[in-house]
């Protein structure tokens, strides 16, 4: 066999020293926990499970407060845990007299979930806190354990603020929502279960916009030829007809 060149031996020596020192350091100086490649390091899981729980869970609350539990179960807040509003309750469950849970009575608490925000789902009760009965604590009118509004909202804008704002700027500003939508009373209390009606055909818009209609200010079109087979709202957004789709 041909002899290895001198420089290769030297390089090999350097690599051997380097690699063996890496392996030695890894074997003896790196703590075992750092070599763990599971998604959650074992020591981290152990550390977390060793902590004392601070939340008691709703069943612990139910044991003493079954009246509140029953009324909450029927209301809109049925999917919230007691500790969502009242904070971690393990200490209170262990010794009810010594520690009391938080009771958020101040007005700033409810808007955390109920301030108007366009990204919240339609139908979710949202208000503008600076105009909605300013300075009154929410709990004077709403029972947080069963927060049904004391009376149904009078205006559609209470929930559909964005649409109302847009319509207010459009040429349909003076039309009431009920001109186009028939809204059953039940919609105000269970908005998703009882839906308002929506116009279904071209003739509906034609009541004001067809040639010869009585409404003077509305732009007129010939329904037979304008837009062919398309429905009006495929091109015109009824809450802001000026903005073409």
């Amino acid at each position, binding site marked *: 066999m041909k002899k290895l*060149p*001198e*420089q*290769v031996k*030297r*390089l090999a*020596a*350097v*690599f051997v020293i*380097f690699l063996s020192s*890496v392996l030695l*350091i*890894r074997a003896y100086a*790196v703590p075992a926990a*750092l*070599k763990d*490649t599971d998604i959650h390091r074992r020591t981290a899981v152990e550390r977390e499970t060793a902590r004392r729980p601070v939340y008691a869970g709703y069943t612990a609350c139910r044991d003493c407060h079954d009246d509140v539990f029953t009324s909450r179960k029927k209301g809109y807040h049925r999917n919230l845990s007691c500790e969502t509003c009242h904070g971690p309750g393990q200490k209170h469950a262990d010794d009810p007299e010594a520690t009391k849970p938080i009771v958020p009575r101040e007005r700033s608490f409810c808007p955390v979930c109920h301030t108007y925000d*366009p*990204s919240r789902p339609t139908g979710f009760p949202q208000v503008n806190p600076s105009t909605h009965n300013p300075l009154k604590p929410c709990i004077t009118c709403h029972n947080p354990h069963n927060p049904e509004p004391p009376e149904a909202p009078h205006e559609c804008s209470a929930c559909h603020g964005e649409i109302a704002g847009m319509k207010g700027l459009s040429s349909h500003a003076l039309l009431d929502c009920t001109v186009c939508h028939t809204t059953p009373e039940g919609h105000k209390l269970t908005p998703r279960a009882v839906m308002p009606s929506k116009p279904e055909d071209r003739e509906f818009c034609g009541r004001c916009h067809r040639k010869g209609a009585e409404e003077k200010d509305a732009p007129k079109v010939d329904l037979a030829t304008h837009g062919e087979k398309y429905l009006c709202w495929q091109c015109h957004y009824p809450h802001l007809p000026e903005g073409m789709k």
Partner: protein
Amino acid sequence: MNPEFLHKLAELVPQVEGFIYPNEIEIHWSILIVLYPYLTGLVAGAFILASLVKVFTVKEVQPVYRLSLLTALAFLLIAPLPLLLHLGNPLRSYEIFLTPNLSSAMAMFGFVYAWYLMVVLLLEIWFDYRKDLITWANESKFPMNFVYRILSLFSKDLTDEAIAFDKKAIRVITIIGIPSAFLLHGYVGFIFGSVKANPWWSSVLIPVVFLFSAIVSGIAMVLLLYMIITPLRGKPLDMPCLDRIASFLFYAVIVDFTLEGLDFIHRLYESEESIKILSKLVMNKLFVSLVIIQVLLGMLVPLFSMAAAKAFRFNEELRKLSYFVAAILIQLGIFATRWNIVVGGQLFSKSFLGLTAYKMEVMGLEGLLVGIAVLIMPFCVLAVLLKLMSPWKTAEEHAAGG
């Protein structure tokens, strides 16, 4: 709520347009993370230029062979620094090499970096310099002779067989080195391209685009360094070498431009739900850095400048000027590319409904001054390397010898 936090939030809120999620208001990957792919790209590009000499035997580029290797090394040594500064805890940086994790793309950095530095770049430089290191060790006085002796690993063999072995080794290493350089920068692109949740990054083309922009920036950087250092040494510029590098640069820019164009058209044609917010991002927040600096100044102007030098047969002085301007603009353009990818990817909300802004600090660990310092550092390392291991001697001997 913590009043200090509220105060900070109040400062940030006016820079938000539309709706964004709360954790998107502040940009976390700052200027330092922009610098990381920029510096790594220069490494890969400079190495590819060096490999032209050894693998593809492009003789004209020989004068910049060693300069390219040392440039690659200088930038590679500094490349992890912005990451370390960004992460904090620099004393724990070695842990990425000691505790590898095969399931984490980011932890693969340990393998990629160690392979490229130890097995490719250092080995190639060592084999190339071994003969010179032994000669310098014999010629210099204490303490430099000792330094050279250590650098040569106390090797003494100057026989023809040993030198022939060096040459063969360099060729083999360069052949391994080209895919390794592709791996190094392709890997950096992969880190961004594999973020599924971010439509600005998530694209299989990103690693390839990164790679070609790396080649462009590396070649331009070596061209720039050669054009600055040679007159400082009082030597004439080797025009055939410059012309050849410039023509490689020209073709690399064309490929890079085509790939980026393809990526752009692909996104437009796919028109996924993110397309509206992305076009808003490009037309508002990134208009200057993407359309003006990256595409117009960083690609089209250099392309025209180099094409004009070819087409109209400029004289030497005008060619030098056109190459120099092109190389500077390309550096600017590639830096803007990194900026647009790293910062741009964080400027829009993942809800696709809003945009935020990035305001760079001046002082502070993630600030402008630290960024500039990190950018200057590879040049300082390069200056030391050039002083210690002069790349010129053999290059000029080579030129003199024919």
